[in-house]
Protein backbone atom coordinates (compact mmCIF):
# COMPACT_ATOMS: atom_id res chain seq x y z
CA UNK A 1 0.00 0.00 0.00
CA UNK A 2 1.16 3.49 -0.73
CA UNK A 3 1.83 5.97 2.01
CA UNK A 4 -1.32 7.92 2.94
CA UNK A 5 -1.40 11.60 2.05
CA UNK A 6 -2.07 12.65 5.61
CA UNK A 7 -1.45 10.60 8.67
CA UNK A 8 -2.31 11.72 12.17
CA UNK A 9 -0.66 9.74 14.95
CA UNK A 10 -1.74 9.87 18.59
CA UNK A 11 -2.53 13.54 18.38
CA UNK A 12 -3.21 15.34 21.63
CA UNK A 13 -4.18 18.99 21.65
CA UNK A 14 -4.41 20.83 24.92
CA UNK A 15 -6.35 23.96 25.58
CA UNK A 16 -5.37 26.24 28.43
CA UNK A 17 -8.27 26.75 30.82
CA UNK A 18 -8.38 28.70 34.03
CA UNK A 19 -8.42 25.38 35.87
CA UNK A 20 -5.48 23.89 33.95
CA UNK A 21 -4.90 22.07 30.68
CA UNK A 22 -7.76 20.21 29.02
CA UNK A 23 -7.17 17.75 26.19
CA UNK A 24 -9.66 18.86 23.53
CA UNK A 25 -8.20 16.22 21.22
CA UNK A 26 -7.13 13.11 23.03
CA UNK A 27 -5.09 10.40 21.30
CA UNK A 28 -6.49 10.77 17.81
CA UNK A 29 -5.08 8.70 14.94
CA UNK A 30 -6.35 8.60 11.39
CA UNK A 31 -5.28 8.44 7.77
CA UNK A 32 -6.40 10.26 4.67
CA UNK A 33 -5.60 8.86 1.24
CA UNK A 34 -5.23 10.86 -1.95
CA UNK A 35 -8.54 11.50 -3.71
CA UNK A 36 -10.84 10.24 -0.96
CA UNK A 37 -13.42 12.07 1.12
CA UNK A 38 -13.19 11.61 4.86
CA UNK A 39 -15.90 12.96 7.11
CA UNK A 40 -15.67 14.11 10.73
CA UNK A 41 -19.02 13.78 12.50
CA UNK A 42 -20.17 14.71 15.99
CA UNK A 43 -22.03 17.30 18.02
CA UNK A 44 -20.67 20.76 18.72
CA UNK A 45 -17.78 20.71 21.13
CA UNK A 46 -16.49 17.29 20.14
CA UNK A 47 -13.27 18.51 18.54
CA UNK A 48 -14.07 18.27 14.84
CA UNK A 49 -13.10 21.81 13.99
CA UNK A 50 -10.18 21.75 16.42
CA UNK A 51 -8.67 18.84 14.49
CA UNK A 52 -9.08 20.77 11.25
CA UNK A 53 -7.41 23.84 12.73
CA UNK A 54 -4.52 21.69 13.95
CA UNK A 55 -4.00 20.28 10.47
CA UNK A 56 -4.00 23.81 9.09
CA UNK A 57 -1.60 24.98 11.79
CA UNK A 58 -4.18 27.49 12.91
CA UNK A 59 -4.63 26.60 16.56
CA UNK A 60 -5.31 29.71 18.63
CA UNK A 61 -1.93 30.93 19.80
CA UNK A 62 -1.06 30.68 23.52
CA UNK A 63 -4.37 28.92 24.17
CA UNK A 64 -4.18 25.73 22.17
CA UNK A 65 -1.11 23.65 21.48
CA UNK A 66 -0.12 20.23 20.21
CA UNK A 67 1.04 18.41 23.33
CA UNK A 68 1.76 15.09 21.73
CA UNK A 69 1.61 13.20 18.46
CA UNK A 70 2.43 13.86 14.84
CA UNK A 71 0.58 15.24 11.82
CA UNK A 72 2.39 13.75 8.84
CA UNK A 73 1.64 15.43 5.53
CA UNK A 74 3.41 13.52 2.77
CA UNK A 75 5.76 12.18 5.42
CA UNK A 76 6.69 15.54 6.98
CA UNK A 77 5.59 16.30 10.51
CA UNK A 78 3.57 19.50 10.48
CA UNK A 79 3.54 19.65 14.27
CA UNK A 80 7.28 20.45 14.13
CA UNK A 81 7.18 23.02 11.34
CA UNK A 82 7.82 26.69 11.93
CA UNK A 83 5.35 29.31 10.81
CA UNK A 84 6.98 30.07 7.45
CA UNK A 85 7.03 26.39 6.51
CA UNK A 86 3.37 26.16 7.49
CA UNK A 87 2.54 29.26 5.48
CA UNK A 88 3.97 27.63 2.37
CA UNK A 89 1.61 24.68 2.80
CA UNK A 90 -1.46 26.54 4.01
CA UNK A 91 -3.68 27.74 1.19
CA UNK A 92 -1.36 26.01 -1.24
CA UNK A 93 -1.22 22.29 -0.52
CA UNK A 94 -3.90 22.23 2.17
CA UNK A 95 -6.71 24.73 2.10
CA UNK A 96 -9.93 25.25 3.95
CA UNK A 97 -13.43 26.57 3.49
CA UNK A 98 -15.49 27.70 6.42
CA UNK A 99 -19.08 27.57 7.54
CA UNK A 100 -19.86 31.25 7.15
CA UNK A 101 -19.50 32.43 3.57
CA UNK A 102 -20.75 35.82 4.78
CA UNK A 103 -17.85 36.56 7.08
CA UNK A 104 -14.94 34.68 5.54
CA UNK A 105 -14.57 37.00 2.55
CA UNK A 106 -13.09 40.46 2.83
CA UNK A 107 -15.90 42.94 2.13
CA UNK A 108 -13.65 45.71 0.76
CA UNK A 109 -11.96 43.71 -2.00
CA UNK A 110 -13.59 42.33 -5.13
CA UNK A 111 -13.86 38.57 -5.31
CA UNK A 112 -11.41 38.59 -8.23
CA UNK A 113 -8.74 40.32 -6.14
CA UNK A 114 -9.26 37.78 -3.37
CA UNK A 115 -8.86 34.81 -5.69
CA UNK A 116 -5.89 36.38 -7.49
CA UNK A 117 -4.14 37.14 -4.20
CA UNK A 118 -3.70 33.45 -3.48
CA UNK A 119 -2.23 32.80 -6.92
CA UNK A 120 0.19 35.70 -6.69
CA UNK A 121 1.27 34.77 -3.20
CA UNK A 122 1.77 31.04 -3.70
CA UNK A 123 2.37 30.67 -7.42
CA UNK A 124 4.20 33.92 -7.98
CA UNK A 125 1.92 34.80 -10.90
CA UNK A 126 1.86 38.35 -12.20
CA UNK A 127 -1.23 40.47 -11.90
CA UNK A 128 -2.64 39.82 -15.33
CA UNK A 129 -2.13 36.04 -15.34
CA UNK A 130 -3.59 35.73 -11.86
CA UNK A 131 -6.65 37.70 -12.93
CA UNK A 132 -7.12 35.49 -15.98
CA UNK A 133 -6.80 32.36 -13.89
CA UNK A 134 -9.26 33.81 -11.35
CA UNK A 135 -11.88 34.12 -14.09
CA UNK A 136 -11.29 30.48 -15.07
CA UNK A 137 -11.67 29.41 -11.44
CA UNK A 138 -14.87 31.37 -10.99
CA UNK A 139 -16.17 29.69 -14.10
CA UNK A 140 -15.07 26.29 -12.77
CA UNK A 141 -17.15 26.77 -9.62
CA UNK A 142 -20.10 27.44 -11.95
CA UNK A 143 -20.78 31.08 -11.38
CA UNK A 144 -22.54 32.25 -14.52
CA UNK A 145 -20.98 35.12 -16.43
CA UNK A 146 -17.70 34.82 -14.54
CA UNK A 147 -16.00 37.53 -16.56
CA UNK A 148 -18.40 40.18 -15.28
CA UNK A 149 -18.94 38.80 -11.78
CA UNK A 150 -15.19 38.71 -11.06
CA UNK A 151 -15.31 42.45 -10.29
CA UNK A 152 -18.21 42.09 -7.86
CA UNK A 153 -17.82 42.70 -4.16
CA UNK A 154 -18.93 39.93 -1.79
CA UNK A 155 -22.11 41.79 -0.79
CA UNK A 156 -23.29 41.67 -4.39
CA UNK A 157 -23.43 37.88 -4.30
CA UNK A 158 -25.84 35.42 -2.69
CA UNK A 159 -24.77 33.05 0.08
CA UNK A 160 -24.35 30.15 -2.32
CA UNK A 161 -22.28 32.24 -4.71
CA UNK A 162 -20.07 33.44 -1.88
CA UNK A 163 -19.42 29.86 -0.83
CA UNK A 164 -18.49 29.12 -4.45
CA UNK A 165 -16.02 32.00 -4.34
CA UNK A 166 -14.56 30.51 -1.15
CA UNK A 167 -14.20 27.20 -2.95
CA UNK A 168 -12.52 28.94 -5.89
CA UNK A 169 -10.03 30.54 -3.50
CA UNK A 170 -9.41 27.24 -1.74
CA UNK A 171 -8.88 25.40 -5.01
CA UNK A 172 -6.79 28.12 -6.67
CA UNK A 173 -3.51 26.34 -6.06
CA UNK A 174 -4.88 22.83 -6.74
CA UNK A 175 -4.40 21.72 -3.14
CA UNK A 176 -3.88 18.08 -2.23
CA UNK A 177 -6.30 18.41 0.69
CA UNK A 178 -9.40 20.56 1.01
CA UNK A 179 -10.88 20.90 4.48
CA UNK A 180 -14.55 21.87 4.39
CA UNK A 181 -15.81 22.87 7.83
CA UNK A 182 -19.62 22.69 7.75
CA UNK A 183 -19.55 24.25 4.27
CA UNK A 184 -23.32 24.18 3.76
CA UNK A 185 -24.75 24.67 7.23
CA UNK A 186 -25.66 28.29 6.52
CA UNK A 187 -27.14 27.48 3.09
CA UNK A 188 -30.49 26.25 1.80
CA UNK A 189 -30.86 22.59 0.82
CA UNK A 190 -31.06 23.19 -2.92
CA UNK A 191 -27.91 25.30 -2.71
CA UNK A 192 -26.32 22.67 -0.49
CA UNK A 193 -27.01 20.10 -3.21
CA UNK A 194 -25.31 22.33 -5.77
CA UNK A 195 -22.26 22.82 -3.55
CA UNK A 196 -21.98 19.09 -2.82
CA UNK A 197 -22.17 18.28 -6.52
CA UNK A 198 -19.50 20.86 -7.19
CA UNK A 199 -17.18 19.50 -4.49
CA UNK A 200 -17.68 15.95 -5.69
CA UNK A 201 -16.95 16.83 -9.33
CA UNK A 202 -13.94 18.94 -8.43
CA UNK A 203 -12.61 16.19 -6.20
CA UNK A 204 -12.94 13.73 -9.04
CA UNK A 205 -11.34 16.02 -11.62
CA UNK A 206 -8.41 17.25 -9.56
CA UNK A 207 -7.85 14.29 -7.25
CA UNK A 208 -8.09 16.56 -4.22
CA UNK A 209 -8.78 14.72 -0.98
CA UNK A 210 -11.61 16.28 1.01
CA UNK A 211 -12.10 16.39 4.76
CA UNK A 212 -15.77 17.17 5.31
CA UNK A 213 -16.75 18.30 8.78
CA UNK A 214 -20.45 18.03 9.42
CA UNK A 215 -23.13 17.02 11.89
CA UNK A 216 -25.47 15.79 9.15
CA UNK A 217 -25.38 12.02 8.71
CA UNK A 218 -27.26 12.37 5.44
CA UNK A 219 -24.47 14.53 4.05
CA UNK A 220 -21.90 11.98 5.19
CA UNK A 221 -23.80 9.13 3.54
CA UNK A 222 -23.92 11.08 0.34
CA UNK A 223 -20.46 12.62 0.18
CA UNK A 224 -17.90 10.63 2.11
CA UNK A 225 -15.97 7.40 1.58
CA UNK A 226 -14.90 7.00 5.18
CA UNK A 227 -15.92 8.65 8.42
CA UNK A 228 -14.63 9.45 11.90
CA UNK A 229 -17.22 9.87 14.63
CA UNK A 230 -15.81 12.10 17.35
CA UNK A 231 -17.07 12.46 20.87
CA UNK A 232 -15.59 14.75 23.51
CA UNK A 233 -12.24 14.98 21.74
CA UNK A 234 -11.88 11.25 21.22
CA UNK A 235 -12.42 8.99 18.29
CA UNK A 236 -15.59 7.00 18.96
CA UNK A 237 -15.87 5.17 15.67
CA UNK A 238 -13.89 5.01 12.45
CA UNK A 239 -14.50 3.22 9.18
CA UNK A 240 -16.01 3.18 5.70
CA UNK A 241 -19.33 5.03 5.54
CA UNK A 242 -21.71 2.30 4.34
CA UNK A 243 -20.94 -0.32 7.02
CA UNK A 244 -20.72 2.27 9.81
CA UNK A 245 -24.16 3.63 8.96
CA UNK A 246 -25.81 0.26 8.40
CA UNK A 247 -24.16 -1.34 11.42
CA UNK A 248 -22.69 1.21 13.85
CA UNK A 249 -20.45 -0.33 16.50
CA UNK A 250 -20.58 2.57 18.94
CA UNK A 251 -23.74 3.60 20.81
CA UNK A 252 -22.99 7.25 20.07
CA UNK A 253 -22.90 6.64 16.32
CA UNK A 254 -26.10 4.67 16.63
CA UNK A 255 -27.70 7.52 18.56
CA UNK A 256 -26.55 10.14 16.06
CA UNK A 257 -28.13 8.21 13.20
CA UNK A 258 -31.41 7.31 14.84
CA UNK A 259 -32.15 10.59 16.62
CA UNK A 260 -32.61 12.43 13.33
CA UNK A 261 -35.81 12.05 11.33
CA UNK A 262 -34.47 11.08 7.91
CA UNK A 263 -36.37 11.22 4.67
CA UNK A 264 -37.38 7.69 3.82
CA UNK A 265 -37.80 5.91 0.52
CA UNK A 266 -41.44 5.15 1.26
CA UNK A 267 -43.20 7.06 3.99
CA UNK A 268 -45.91 5.34 6.04
CA UNK A 269 -48.53 6.44 8.56
CA UNK A 270 -46.35 5.13 11.34
CA UNK A 271 -44.44 7.72 13.33
CA UNK A 272 -42.60 6.35 16.35
CA UNK A 273 -40.90 8.76 18.73
CA UNK A 274 -37.32 9.61 17.86
CA UNK A 275 -34.59 7.82 19.75
CA UNK A 276 -33.25 10.21 22.35
CA UNK A 277 -29.64 10.46 23.40
CA UNK A 278 -30.20 11.96 26.83
CA UNK A 279 -28.00 14.71 28.21
CA UNK A 280 -25.34 16.78 26.47
CA UNK A 281 -21.61 16.63 25.69
CA UNK A 282 -19.62 16.83 28.97
CA UNK A 283 -17.77 19.99 29.88
CA UNK A 284 -14.08 20.43 29.08
CA UNK A 285 -13.05 19.83 32.70
CA UNK A 286 -13.84 16.14 32.44
CA UNK A 287 -12.23 15.55 29.04
CA UNK A 288 -9.02 13.90 30.27
CA UNK A 289 -10.42 11.30 32.66
CA UNK A 290 -9.74 7.58 32.36
CA UNK A 291 -13.28 6.48 31.53
CA UNK A 292 -15.63 6.38 28.61
CA UNK A 293 -16.84 9.98 28.32
CA UNK A 294 -20.07 8.85 26.69
CA UNK A 295 -20.99 6.62 29.64
CA UNK A 296 -23.28 9.20 31.27
CA UNK A 297 -25.50 9.26 28.15
CA UNK A 298 -25.21 5.61 27.16
CA UNK A 299 -27.91 2.98 27.59
CA UNK A 300 -25.31 0.20 27.81
CA UNK A 301 -22.95 1.78 30.33
CA UNK A 302 -21.76 -0.17 33.38
CA UNK A 303 -19.06 0.28 36.03
CA UNK A 304 -16.25 -0.69 33.70
CA UNK A 305 -17.26 2.05 31.24
CA UNK A 306 -17.21 4.61 34.04
CA UNK A 307 -13.78 3.60 35.37
CA UNK A 308 -11.63 2.76 32.38
CA UNK A 309 -11.18 4.32 28.98
CA UNK A 310 -12.16 1.82 26.27
CA UNK A 311 -9.47 0.81 23.77
CA UNK A 312 -10.08 0.79 20.04
CA UNK A 313 -11.70 -2.49 19.05
CA UNK A 314 -11.27 -3.47 15.42
CA UNK A 315 -13.93 -5.11 13.24
CA UNK A 316 -12.43 -5.48 9.78
CA UNK A 317 -12.13 -1.95 8.37
CA UNK A 318 -14.25 -0.54 11.15
CA UNK A 319 -13.14 0.30 14.67
CA UNK A 320 -15.00 1.42 17.76
CA UNK A 321 -13.84 2.72 21.12
CA UNK A 322 -16.46 0.99 23.22
CA UNK A 323 -16.30 -1.79 25.79
CA UNK A 324 -19.60 -3.13 24.53
CA UNK A 325 -18.86 -2.84 20.83
CA UNK A 326 -19.50 -6.53 20.19
CA UNK A 327 -22.98 -6.24 21.74
CA UNK A 328 -24.20 -3.55 19.37
Amino acid at each position, binding site marked *: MTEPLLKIENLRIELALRSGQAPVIDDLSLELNAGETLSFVGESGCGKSMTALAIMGLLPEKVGSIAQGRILFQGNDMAQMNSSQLRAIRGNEISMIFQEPMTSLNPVYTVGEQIAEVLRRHKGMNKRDAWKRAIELLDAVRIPNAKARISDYPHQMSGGQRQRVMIAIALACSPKILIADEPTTALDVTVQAQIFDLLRDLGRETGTAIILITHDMGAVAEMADRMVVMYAGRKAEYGPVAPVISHPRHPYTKG*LISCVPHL*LAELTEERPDLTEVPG*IVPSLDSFGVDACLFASRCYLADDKCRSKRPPEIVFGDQSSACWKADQI
Partner: protein
Amino acid sequence: MTALLNVQNLSVRFPIKRRWGQTSWLYAVDDVSFEVQRGETLAIVGESGSGKTTAALGVARLVANSGGTVGLGGSDFLALEGEALRKARAKVQVIFQDPYSSLNPRLRAEAIVREPMDSLGTLPVAERPARVAELFKQVGLRPEQMKLFPHQFSGGQRQRIGIARALATNPELIICDEAVSALDVAVQAQILNLLRRLQRELGLTYLFISHDLGVVQHMSDHIAVMYMGKIVEHADRLSLFNDPRHPYTKALLSAVPSVDQKRKVERMLIPGDPPDPLNPPAGCRFASRCPLVEDACRAAQPPLDAVAADHKVACIKA
Protein backbone atom coordinates in the same frame (compact mmCIF):
# COMPACT_ATOMS: atom_id res chain seq x y z
CA MET B 1 -63.21 18.16 12.28
CA THR B 2 -63.18 21.92 12.66
CA ALA B 3 -60.54 24.30 11.49
CA LEU B 4 -59.01 26.16 14.41
CA LEU B 5 -57.13 28.49 12.11
CA ASN B 6 -58.51 29.70 8.81
CA VAL B 7 -56.19 32.05 6.96
CA GLN B 8 -57.62 33.73 3.87
CA ASN B 9 -55.66 35.86 1.40
CA LEU B 10 -52.95 36.77 3.87
CA SER B 11 -50.43 39.25 2.51
CA VAL B 12 -47.55 40.85 4.34
CA ARG B 13 -45.57 43.59 2.66
CA PHE B 14 -42.53 45.57 3.69
CA PRO B 15 -41.81 49.11 2.56
CA ILE B 16 -38.51 49.60 0.74
CA LYS B 17 -37.40 53.21 0.65
CA ARG B 18 -36.33 54.43 -2.77
CA ARG B 19 -34.80 57.68 -3.91
CA TRP B 20 -36.87 60.91 -3.93
CA GLY B 21 -39.07 59.73 -1.10
CA GLN B 22 -40.59 56.97 -3.16
CA THR B 23 -41.53 53.69 -1.54
CA SER B 24 -41.85 50.38 -3.24
CA TRP B 25 -43.36 47.36 -1.55
CA LEU B 26 -41.86 43.94 -1.11
CA TYR B 27 -44.54 41.29 -0.79
CA ALA B 28 -42.93 38.76 1.54
CA VAL B 29 -46.22 36.89 1.71
CA ASP B 30 -48.52 37.29 -1.24
CA ASP B 31 -52.15 36.23 -1.08
CA VAL B 32 -51.77 33.02 0.90
CA SER B 33 -54.68 30.92 2.21
CA PHE B 34 -54.64 27.82 4.39
CA GLU B 35 -56.46 26.07 7.22
CA VAL B 36 -55.21 24.17 10.24
CA GLN B 37 -57.49 21.65 11.93
CA ARG B 38 -57.68 21.57 15.71
CA GLY B 39 -55.06 19.25 17.21
CA GLU B 40 -53.12 18.96 13.96
CA THR B 41 -49.80 20.27 12.74
CA LEU B 42 -49.41 22.26 9.56
CA ALA B 43 -45.82 22.71 8.49
CA ILE B 44 -44.76 25.56 6.25
CA VAL B 45 -41.52 24.70 4.47
CA GLY B 46 -39.41 26.70 2.11
CA GLU B 47 -35.95 28.12 1.73
CA SER B 48 -34.70 31.36 3.19
CA GLY B 49 -36.62 34.28 1.76
CA SER B 50 -39.64 32.18 0.85
CA GLY B 51 -41.82 34.03 3.36
CA LYS B 52 -42.55 31.14 5.69
CA THR B 53 -41.53 32.93 8.87
CA THR B 54 -43.23 36.15 7.78
CA ALA B 55 -46.43 34.21 7.12
CA ALA B 56 -46.30 32.81 10.64
CA LEU B 57 -45.58 36.20 12.16
CA GLY B 58 -48.44 37.60 10.11
CA VAL B 59 -50.76 34.99 11.61
CA ALA B 60 -49.53 35.87 15.09
CA ARG B 61 -49.97 39.58 14.35
CA LEU B 62 -46.34 40.29 15.06
CA VAL B 63 -45.71 42.23 11.84
CA ALA B 64 -47.37 45.37 10.54
CA ASN B 65 -48.73 45.90 7.03
CA SER B 66 -50.59 42.66 6.72
CA GLY B 67 -53.85 42.19 4.86
CA GLY B 68 -56.38 39.40 4.59
CA THR B 69 -58.14 37.56 7.37
CA VAL B 70 -56.87 35.21 10.05
CA GLY B 71 -59.89 33.34 11.38
CA LEU B 72 -59.16 31.99 14.83
CA GLY B 73 -61.96 30.10 16.53
CA GLY B 74 -64.61 32.08 14.66
CA SER B 75 -63.32 35.67 14.88
CA ASP B 76 -60.87 37.54 12.67
CA PHE B 77 -57.67 37.86 14.68
CA LEU B 78 -56.39 40.67 12.46
CA ALA B 79 -59.49 42.82 13.10
CA LEU B 80 -59.46 42.61 16.90
CA GLU B 81 -58.58 45.63 19.01
CA GLY B 82 -57.96 46.49 22.63
CA GLU B 83 -59.08 44.09 25.31
CA ALA B 84 -60.45 41.55 22.81
CA LEU B 85 -57.05 41.39 21.13
CA ARG B 86 -55.29 40.93 24.47
CA LYS B 87 -57.58 38.04 25.30
CA ALA B 88 -57.04 36.47 21.89
CA ARG B 89 -53.26 36.82 22.11
CA ALA B 90 -53.28 34.35 24.96
CA LYS B 91 -54.58 31.77 22.47
CA VAL B 92 -51.69 32.22 20.04
CA GLN B 93 -48.15 31.78 21.30
CA VAL B 94 -44.78 31.48 19.58
CA ILE B 95 -41.69 29.35 20.18
CA PHE B 96 -38.72 31.10 18.59
CA GLN B 97 -35.68 29.74 16.81
CA ASP B 98 -32.82 31.02 18.86
CA PRO B 99 -32.99 29.92 22.49
CA TYR B 100 -30.08 32.25 23.23
CA SER B 101 -31.54 35.57 22.15
CA SER B 102 -35.23 34.91 22.80
CA LEU B 103 -34.92 34.77 26.59
CA ASN B 104 -34.33 37.91 28.65
CA PRO B 105 -30.87 37.39 30.23
CA ARG B 106 -31.78 39.48 33.28
CA LEU B 107 -34.81 37.50 34.31
CA ARG B 108 -34.84 34.27 36.25
CA ALA B 109 -36.34 31.28 34.47
CA GLU B 110 -39.49 31.39 36.59
CA ALA B 111 -40.06 35.05 35.76
CA ILE B 112 -39.66 34.35 32.05
CA VAL B 113 -42.26 31.61 32.15
CA ARG B 114 -44.56 33.70 34.28
CA GLU B 115 -44.39 36.82 32.14
CA PRO B 116 -47.15 35.98 29.61
CA MET B 117 -49.56 35.33 32.50
CA ASP B 118 -48.61 38.67 34.04
CA SER B 119 -48.99 40.68 30.88
CA LEU B 120 -52.10 38.96 29.56
CA GLY B 121 -53.68 38.42 32.97
CA THR B 122 -54.87 34.91 32.21
CA LEU B 123 -54.69 33.64 35.77
CA PRO B 124 -55.25 35.17 39.25
CA VAL B 125 -51.94 36.33 40.71
CA ALA B 126 -52.07 33.86 43.58
CA GLU B 127 -52.29 30.88 41.27
CA ARG B 128 -49.38 31.84 39.02
CA PRO B 129 -46.46 30.37 41.02
CA ALA B 130 -48.15 26.97 41.10
CA ARG B 131 -48.78 27.17 37.37
CA VAL B 132 -45.09 27.98 36.74
CA ALA B 133 -44.06 24.94 38.76
CA GLU B 134 -46.48 22.78 36.81
CA LEU B 135 -45.11 24.08 33.50
CA PHE B 136 -41.53 23.35 34.56
CA LYS B 137 -42.52 19.78 35.27
CA GLN B 138 -44.40 19.50 31.99
CA VAL B 139 -41.40 20.46 29.86
CA GLY B 140 -38.95 18.30 31.81
CA LEU B 141 -37.13 20.89 33.91
CA ARG B 142 -36.42 20.45 37.62
CA PRO B 143 -38.14 22.72 40.20
CA GLU B 144 -34.81 23.91 41.63
CA GLN B 145 -33.93 25.31 38.18
CA MET B 146 -36.68 27.90 38.45
CA LYS B 147 -34.37 30.35 40.23
CA LEU B 148 -31.60 30.18 37.63
CA PHE B 149 -30.82 32.67 34.87
CA PRO B 150 -30.86 31.75 31.16
CA HIS B 151 -27.05 31.63 30.85
CA GLN B 152 -26.98 28.80 33.39
CA PHE B 153 -28.93 26.52 31.04
CA SER B 154 -27.84 24.55 27.98
CA GLY B 155 -29.38 25.27 24.58
CA GLY B 156 -31.90 22.45 24.86
CA GLN B 157 -32.93 23.48 28.35
CA ARG B 158 -33.39 27.06 27.20
CA GLN B 159 -35.66 25.86 24.44
CA ARG B 160 -37.64 24.03 27.12
CA ILE B 161 -38.04 27.35 28.96
CA GLY B 162 -39.23 28.89 25.69
CA ILE B 163 -41.78 26.09 25.36
CA ALA B 164 -42.95 26.50 28.96
CA ARG B 165 -43.41 30.22 28.33
CA ALA B 166 -45.45 29.50 25.20
CA LEU B 167 -47.66 27.09 27.15
CA ALA B 168 -48.18 29.47 30.08
CA THR B 169 -51.43 31.03 28.86
CA ASN B 170 -53.04 27.73 27.75
CA PRO B 171 -52.84 28.62 24.07
CA GLU B 172 -54.71 26.75 21.36
CA LEU B 173 -52.30 27.55 18.56
CA ILE B 174 -48.54 27.41 18.97
CA ILE B 175 -46.32 28.72 16.23
CA CYS B 176 -42.96 26.94 16.21
CA ASP B 177 -40.64 29.12 14.18
CA GLU B 178 -37.61 26.93 13.39
CA ALA B 179 -37.87 25.78 16.99
CA VAL B 180 -35.14 23.14 16.73
CA SER B 181 -32.85 24.54 14.02
CA ALA B 182 -30.31 25.97 16.43
CA LEU B 183 -29.95 22.77 18.45
CA ASP B 184 -27.53 19.87 18.16
CA VAL B 185 -29.10 16.76 16.65
CA ALA B 186 -29.30 14.75 19.87
CA VAL B 187 -30.96 17.65 21.68
CA GLN B 188 -33.21 18.28 18.69
CA ALA B 189 -34.68 14.78 19.10
CA GLN B 190 -35.45 15.49 22.76
CA ILE B 191 -37.30 18.70 21.89
CA LEU B 192 -39.22 17.16 18.97
CA ASN B 193 -40.40 14.30 21.18
CA LEU B 194 -41.42 16.81 23.85
CA LEU B 195 -43.42 18.86 21.34
CA ARG B 196 -45.26 15.78 20.12
CA ARG B 197 -45.99 14.57 23.65
CA LEU B 198 -47.38 17.99 24.61
CA GLN B 199 -49.54 18.00 21.50
CA ARG B 200 -51.03 14.63 22.43
CA GLU B 201 -51.59 15.58 26.06
CA LEU B 202 -52.88 19.10 25.64
CA GLY B 203 -54.55 18.87 22.23
CA LEU B 204 -52.37 21.64 20.84
CA THR B 205 -52.44 22.86 17.27
CA TYR B 206 -49.06 23.66 15.74
CA LEU B 207 -48.06 25.89 12.90
CA PHE B 208 -44.61 24.47 12.35
CA ILE B 209 -42.15 26.57 10.38
CA SER B 210 -39.04 24.74 9.24
CA HIS B 211 -36.57 24.37 6.42
CA ASP B 212 -35.64 20.84 7.48
CA LEU B 213 -37.74 18.40 5.48
CA GLY B 214 -36.79 15.43 7.63
CA VAL B 215 -38.11 17.19 10.72
CA VAL B 216 -41.24 18.32 8.86
CA GLN B 217 -41.91 14.80 7.64
CA HIS B 218 -41.73 13.61 11.23
CA MET B 219 -43.80 16.35 12.85
CA SER B 220 -46.60 17.41 10.54
CA ASP B 221 -49.98 16.22 9.31
CA HIS B 222 -50.19 18.70 6.47
CA ILE B 223 -47.48 20.59 4.66
CA ALA B 224 -47.51 23.83 2.69
CA VAL B 225 -44.49 24.50 0.50
CA MET B 226 -43.71 28.17 -0.05
CA TYR B 227 -41.65 29.78 -2.78
CA MET B 228 -41.23 33.56 -3.03
CA GLY B 229 -44.24 34.43 -0.90
CA LYS B 230 -46.64 31.96 -2.52
CA ILE B 231 -47.82 28.50 -1.53
CA VAL B 232 -46.87 26.26 -4.45
CA GLU B 233 -48.04 22.96 -3.02
CA HIS B 234 -50.26 21.99 -0.09
CA ALA B 235 -50.92 18.38 0.81
CA ASP B 236 -51.23 15.85 3.57
CA ARG B 237 -48.03 14.24 4.78
CA LEU B 238 -48.12 11.01 2.80
CA SER B 239 -49.13 12.65 -0.49
CA LEU B 240 -46.47 15.32 -0.27
CA PHE B 241 -43.57 13.02 0.52
CA ASN B 242 -44.60 10.01 -1.55
CA ASP B 243 -46.11 11.86 -4.49
CA PRO B 244 -44.82 15.44 -4.80
CA ARG B 245 -46.29 17.20 -7.83
CA HIS B 246 -44.75 20.66 -8.03
CA PRO B 247 -41.29 20.75 -9.65
CA TYR B 248 -40.01 22.92 -6.82
CA THR B 249 -41.18 20.44 -4.19
CA LYS B 250 -39.57 17.64 -6.16
CA ALA B 251 -36.31 19.54 -6.38
CA LEU B 252 -36.43 20.37 -2.68
CA LEU B 253 -37.01 16.75 -1.69
CA SER B 254 -34.37 15.42 -4.04
CA ALA B 255 -31.82 17.83 -2.61
CA VAL B 256 -31.99 16.40 0.89
CA PRO B 257 -29.25 13.88 1.57
CA SER B 258 -30.46 10.83 3.44
CA VAL B 259 -28.96 7.78 5.12
CA ASP B 260 -31.73 5.56 3.72
CA GLN B 261 -29.87 3.51 1.10
CA LYS B 262 -33.12 2.61 -0.64
CA ARG B 263 -33.96 6.25 -1.18
CA LYS B 264 -32.16 6.73 -4.45
CA VAL B 265 -34.02 9.63 -5.97
CA GLU B 266 -32.92 11.23 -9.17
CA ARG B 267 -31.24 14.45 -8.09
CA MET B 268 -33.13 17.33 -9.62
CA LEU B 269 -30.84 20.31 -9.63
CA ILE B 270 -32.41 23.70 -9.98
CA PRO B 271 -29.95 26.22 -11.35
CA GLY B 272 -29.43 29.76 -10.18
CA ASP B 273 -31.08 31.74 -7.42
CA PRO B 274 -34.66 32.99 -6.95
CA PRO B 275 -35.51 36.18 -8.89
CA ASP B 276 -35.52 39.62 -7.28
CA PRO B 277 -38.48 39.72 -4.86
CA LEU B 278 -38.97 43.44 -5.52
CA ASN B 279 -39.64 42.63 -9.16
CA PRO B 280 -41.40 39.29 -9.17
CA PRO B 281 -42.08 37.81 -12.60
CA ALA B 282 -45.60 38.13 -13.98
CA GLY B 283 -46.15 34.41 -14.43
CA CYS B 284 -45.16 31.49 -12.25
CA ARG B 285 -42.45 32.63 -9.86
CA PHE B 286 -40.53 29.42 -10.25
CA ALA B 287 -40.48 29.64 -14.06
CA SER B 288 -36.92 31.00 -14.27
CA ARG B 289 -35.50 27.88 -12.60
CA CYS B 290 -38.01 25.25 -13.62
CA PRO B 291 -36.94 22.35 -15.85
CA LEU B 292 -40.48 21.94 -17.22
CA VAL B 293 -41.10 25.58 -18.09
CA GLU B 294 -43.05 26.58 -21.21
CA ASP B 295 -44.48 29.86 -22.52
CA ALA B 296 -47.80 29.56 -20.72
CA CYS B 297 -45.97 29.42 -17.37
CA ARG B 298 -44.50 32.87 -17.93
CA ALA B 299 -47.80 34.40 -19.00
CA ALA B 300 -49.98 34.02 -15.92
CA GLN B 301 -49.69 32.89 -12.33
CA PRO B 302 -50.94 29.34 -11.93
CA PRO B 303 -53.75 29.03 -9.34
CA LEU B 304 -53.44 26.63 -6.39
CA ASP B 305 -55.74 23.90 -7.71
CA ALA B 306 -56.74 20.56 -6.25
CA VAL B 307 -55.16 17.57 -8.03
CA ALA B 308 -56.43 15.00 -5.54
CA ALA B 309 -58.23 14.96 -2.23
CA ASP B 310 -56.12 16.93 0.25
CA HIS B 311 -53.58 17.84 -2.39
CA LYS B 312 -53.31 21.24 -4.09
CA VAL B 313 -50.65 22.34 -6.53
CA ALA B 314 -49.96 25.67 -8.21
CA CYS B 315 -48.49 24.40 -11.47
CA ILE B 316 -50.07 24.02 -14.87
CA LYS B 317 -47.85 21.02 -15.59
CA ALA B 318 -48.70 19.11 -12.43
